[in-house]
């Protein structure tokens, strides 16, 4: 029986020629990730095992990005605990504030994940690296602890859904709109336990930043992982960022998919997910008049350089609406510096937006832009659950950086064409 991309990667990492859906395997890990929320729990669990070494000091990444720069004393204690652990174990990929970035933007940028890798991260959006043709998935802290100790994790071989992308998206349609459209189509559990595999000649029209933002949200459809077929753009990205050895896996021609969707990118419109689920999508022409109080442009979904550029293109020479707080958060130091050098910060600041140091911050309701009761935000983040960005009675609308920037100017959810 033919295998999907995901099945092939997992089979190889389990030392097997063939795997079938539902089969339980143990796979070798190329990278194990944790952050300042999940790693402290993992460290406590790791200590219980009673060993003094991690499996490989180069294959673990500890990224304090959520509540950093530490927002309060308790957060500082958690960050300290994982820093000390990283130092004690000699973990190479520990990133202190000033070098840190939002984990899922940081790891690819640092070349720590390449095509064909198997990656687990104690963070649900670890699925982001599927953009590189890697198998990567979110797990919990205990799995992280076990992974750090053994270099292995157990997996159930997933079935897969295939998304064949064709055509070229319109001017204001980005990877974010494509994935929001897909989640609207299949629902927040539409890919539960399954892989989402993205193929087709439309891939050429999606940049790596687009693909990262799409793979990032595979979890919002309940998927185990999202993965893109590797092409020239992937390999160019890998050459620019990494010296690690990589391996390209293609699905067999007779691979079995439980479902196949054909999506014509040229037909898609900018899409917004209404509260309180990412599946509550509406195209921009159907949003109506939704007044807003805050705009967040950042996160592991859309805090990359192209996102900064699109936002700046729209904010250039315009002003953020007087009733709106617009907060821009480049996801890594490198993106931050690049934005500064390209003059994007002048545009943001002149427009009346605030620019933050890299952090998850408001994305998870941590800090740097929490919503009060009844307030509404347009955010380029990935979740709009009840209370996600603050008070349980606040609201988050998920959108692309283009829609977010245009909304900041309009004071309501708006398309760049309306301003």
């Amino acid at each position, binding site marked *: 029986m033919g295998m999907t991309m995901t099945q092939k990667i997992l089979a190889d990492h389990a030392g097997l020629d063939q795997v079938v859906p539902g089969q339980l395997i143990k796979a070798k890990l190329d990278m194990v990730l944790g952050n300042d929320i999940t790693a*402290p729990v993992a460290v406590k669990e790791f200590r219980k095992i009673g060993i003094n070494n991690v499996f490989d000091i180069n294959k673990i990444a500890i990224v304090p990005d959520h509540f950093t720069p530490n927002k309060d004393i308790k957060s500082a204690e958690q960050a300290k605990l994982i820093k000390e652990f990283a130092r004690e174990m000699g973990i190479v990929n520990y990133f202190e504030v000033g070098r840190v970035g939002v984990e899922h933007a940081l790891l690819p940028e640092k070349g720590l994940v390449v095509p064909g890798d198997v990656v687990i991260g104690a963070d649900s959006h*670890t699925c982001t690296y599927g953009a590189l043709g890697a198998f990567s998935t979110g797990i919990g802290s205990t799995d992280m602890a076990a992974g750090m100790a053994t270099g292995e994790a157990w997996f159930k071989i997933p079935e897969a859904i295939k998304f064949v992308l064709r055509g070229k998206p319109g001017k204001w349609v980005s990877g974010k709109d494509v994935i929001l459209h897909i989640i609207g189509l299949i629902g927040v559990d539409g890919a*539960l336990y399954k892989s989402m595999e993205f193929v087709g000649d439309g891939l050429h029209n999606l940049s790596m930043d687009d693909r990262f933002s799409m793979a990032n949200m595979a979890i919002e459809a*309940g998927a185990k992982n999202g993965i893109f077929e590797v092409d020239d753009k992937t390999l160019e990205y890998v050459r620019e960022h990494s010296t690690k050895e990589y391996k390209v896996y293609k699905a067999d021609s007779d691979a079995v998919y439980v479902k196949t969707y054909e999506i014509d990118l040229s037909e898609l419109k900018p899409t917004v997910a209404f509260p309180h689920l990412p599946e509550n999508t509406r195209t921009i022409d159907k949003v109506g008049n939704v007044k807003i109080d805050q705009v967040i442009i950042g996160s592991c979904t859309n805090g990359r350089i192209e996102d900064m550029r699109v936002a700046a293109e729209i904010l250039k020479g315009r002003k953020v609406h007087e009733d709106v707080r617009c907060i821009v958060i480049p996801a890594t130091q490198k993106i931050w510096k690049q934005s500064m050098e390209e003059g994007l910060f002048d545009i943001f600041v002149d427009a009346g937006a605030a620019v933050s140091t890299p952090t998850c911050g408001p994305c998870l309701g941590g800090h740097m832009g929490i919503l009060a009761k009844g307030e509404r935000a347009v955010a380029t983040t990935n979740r709009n659950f009840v209370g996600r960005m603050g008070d349980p009675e606040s609201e988050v609308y998920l959108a692309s950086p283009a829609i977010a920037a245009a909304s900041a100017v309009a004071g309501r959810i708006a398309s760049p064409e309306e301003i």
Partner: protein
Amino acid sequence: MKAQGKAIKYGDNVDTDVIIPARYLNTSDPAELASHCMEDLDKEFLKKVDKGDIMVGGKNFGCGSSREHAPIAIKASGISCVIAETFARIFFRNSINIGLPIIECLEASKDISDGDNVEIDFETGIIINKTKGKTYTGVPFPQFMQEIISADGLISYIKKQF
């Protein structure tokens, strides 16, 4: 192993942000986490819950973040088992790894009402609704996961390897 208690029922897509909001994640202390469990969805939860009670959800229970704090908070609040139509996969893994019994059963998830007295046998997957006098059959864990559970979680299971 069995669990028995009254059912506390919620709907579909109960996400980890309502199980334990991120604003409380600057700690990993189970008791402290439990003191905020479910508060954004159900302010009365902590008053309602008695040790041994059973949480019942619909589809995609535990969707969202990978925070293990979510099953930890539920377990520390006294809940002895969660029944749902389906679980989000990271929540599923995490629950097994930390030793919170969970079981998938469409019929039980639909039929059990808030307050029903429910008994679950984990080995067989049989769920008895004593209030309604009904029996449902859930999906018992595969052998491999039973081993992890009987080893009292993944860490003790791993410990044997060293």
